[in-house]
């Protein structure tokens, strides 16, 4: 693996604004063994916007999302074809190091999964291994403030992250991703395990975070997609059925299947 060229290519690419999208997929096919979970997905994600991916269970949302930062490589049977362009660089190019990809494209999971470490260390660890040279206390404070968690935890930074509530843990996980100053945040049903109040807090957060980051969020909650996203993609059985501005998609769907889904007729 050639690590240095990767870094150079990303750094050059990150500096330029030549690509229209923060992330773009071209003819992306993803297989588990012989069965195809995502078909010929080609779509672009706008910079500093929230894009929601909706669709019935099993349609390939998570599979697609995981392929964007090469997390699907943890699944032995998964195989990816096609391109995922990050600032014009295909993250699946042989010379690209997945570690580098994940550093720029952060991920928040459905179930909060903080490290088995202190709250402080949950945020500082990722920065440290990525060679952060600034002040760690400052970074921790700043990241926690961004996710509106600082006031709740500032007196117990040394305590285990597991001592927090589910909603607090999820915000900590978002702060952990944000602390690396990534370009893109991938979120797979980040509020499905949370109560309405925690959910509302995280939704507010997305509005704030999109000023700096490109956010791609998978959700089953159509109200949530309507509230937080600028654009929405509807997937069905591995196909991208419709992709449009959120208002457009919800109020004026072009495809009959989209209309059926959002009006609750199947799925």
């Amino acid at each position, binding site marked *: 693996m050639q690590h240095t060229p990767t870094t150079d290519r990303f750094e050059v690419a990150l500096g330029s604004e030549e690509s229209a999208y923060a992330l773009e997929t071209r003819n992306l096919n993803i297989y588990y063994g012989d069965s195809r979970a995502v078909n010929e997905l080609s779509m672009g994600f706008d910079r500093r916007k929230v894009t929601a991916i909706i669709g019935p269970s099993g349609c390939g949302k998570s599979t697609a999302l995981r392929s964007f930062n090469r997390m699907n490589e943890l699944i032995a049977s998964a195989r990816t074809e096609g391109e995922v362009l990050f600032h014009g660089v295909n993250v699946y190019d042989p010379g690209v190091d997945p570690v580098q990809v994940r550093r720029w494209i952060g991920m928040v999971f459905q179930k909060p999964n903080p490290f*088995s470490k202190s709250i402080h260390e949950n945020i500082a660890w990722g920065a440290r291994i*990525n060679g952060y040279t600034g002040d760690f206390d400052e970074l921790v404070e700043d990241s926690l403030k961004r996710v509106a968690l600082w006031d709740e935890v500032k007196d117990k930074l040394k305590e285990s992250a597991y001592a927090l509530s589910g909603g607090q843990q999820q915000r900590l996980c978002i702060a952990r991703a944000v602390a*690396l100053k990534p370009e893109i945040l991938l979120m797979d049903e980040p509020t499905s395990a949370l109560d309405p109040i925690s959910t509302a807090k995280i939704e507010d957060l997305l509005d704030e975070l999109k000023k700096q980051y490109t956010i791609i969020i998978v959700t089953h909650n159509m109200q949530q997609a309507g509230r937080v996203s600028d654009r929405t993609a509807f997937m069905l059985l591995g196909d991208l059925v419709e992709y449009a501005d959120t208002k457009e998609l919800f109020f004026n769907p072009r495809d009959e299947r989209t209309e059926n889904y959002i009006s609750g007729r199947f799925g």
Partner: protein
Amino acid sequence: MTGTFNQNLSVRHVRGSRWQAAFALATILAVAFLATLVLTIVDDAFGWVIMMDETDRRELTRDGVTLDAQNTAQLLATIDEHLSPRRYRALERELPFADRGRDDLYALVLAEIVNPEIAETYNLFESLVSAQAIKAQAAEEYPEGLLVFRSWVNARFLLAPQSAVPLAAGIKTAILGTLMTILITLAFAFPIGIGAAIWLEEYARDSWLTRAIQVNIYNLAGVPSIIYGMLGLAVFVRGLEPITSGAIFGASAAGDTANGRTILSAGLTLAVLILPVIIINAQEALKAVPGSLRQSSLAVGATKWQTIRYHVLPASFDRILTGTVLAISRAIGETAPLVVIGASTFLTQDPTSIFSKFTTLPIQIYQWTSRPQAEFRHLAAAAIVVLLALMLSLNSFAIVARNKMRKQKRF
């Protein structure tokens, strides 16, 4: 649909309570076996003994003072009177009597003049139940004899080397041999076992080769330990003799007589013996780490090794430790493979290095149990008590350490 429900609750409950009773019975049986084991050992490790003195210590009373209470001058007088001139000169040459302390003189009188021997031994159970009968028998058959309650496990026993005289025999050499052997075993089996487990679990791709390796490891865990003895004999004692005898390191003093039959060979043989168990256990421990933990680490741009080092290993270490301690406990108790590779049958010299000849506690126990005299049976029981205490303390250490680590993690 015409189906009806027949709950039949009483029959279901009866069935359930029968099973419950069966499980309780199984537990009681297990406890009973354990209790029997412990009782038999304790029974042999303590009890009355009748000591016969070569010179009755009651005759050594001087100026109305019993032997136990005599001062230096009185003890010297006793020695003058009873010791043969030749022996006296020999001891004088070792260290002049004038320079010897009171305790030293007392020990000398006991060993050289009183020279007690055991005439009869009794088990703990007999000693407690039929004390009167024993006293009567002692008075009748050994009027000169001294009936004392003896703990076969005592400080002298722990600190004395092996001896053909039961009263003088101890297990210091065996304890040192066991500890040194186990340290070698741990030093090799732990890093190699954990390393192999990490590779198999975290790095190896699922191929026919890794599957074949895995199957072999499982099978090796079930191979009888004596086979490992044969392997140790062929590889460590014979094949690697220059290394295991210490010859190439210039360790000649012990090496010239031990050949390859050294503590190092014993430790290595036991290491190979428990390696499969350690690997399998560590693999299970790694498997038990939830995937979400790995994902969370990789998602912040950690490398695979950083993920293993900082998240997977800390999360699985308590289990790895527990399994390792259990494996080590097994190794401590192994006898057969050590007999095969040539444990010394009668060793009075403490090991000085890993290239020394060796004996271990189980070997010592095995030898004592194969002797006909009753005294050696008691010595064996005492050594078993020590061996069990060693294992018990090791296991409790593991449990305490594990609980401590477990408190820090939660998922």
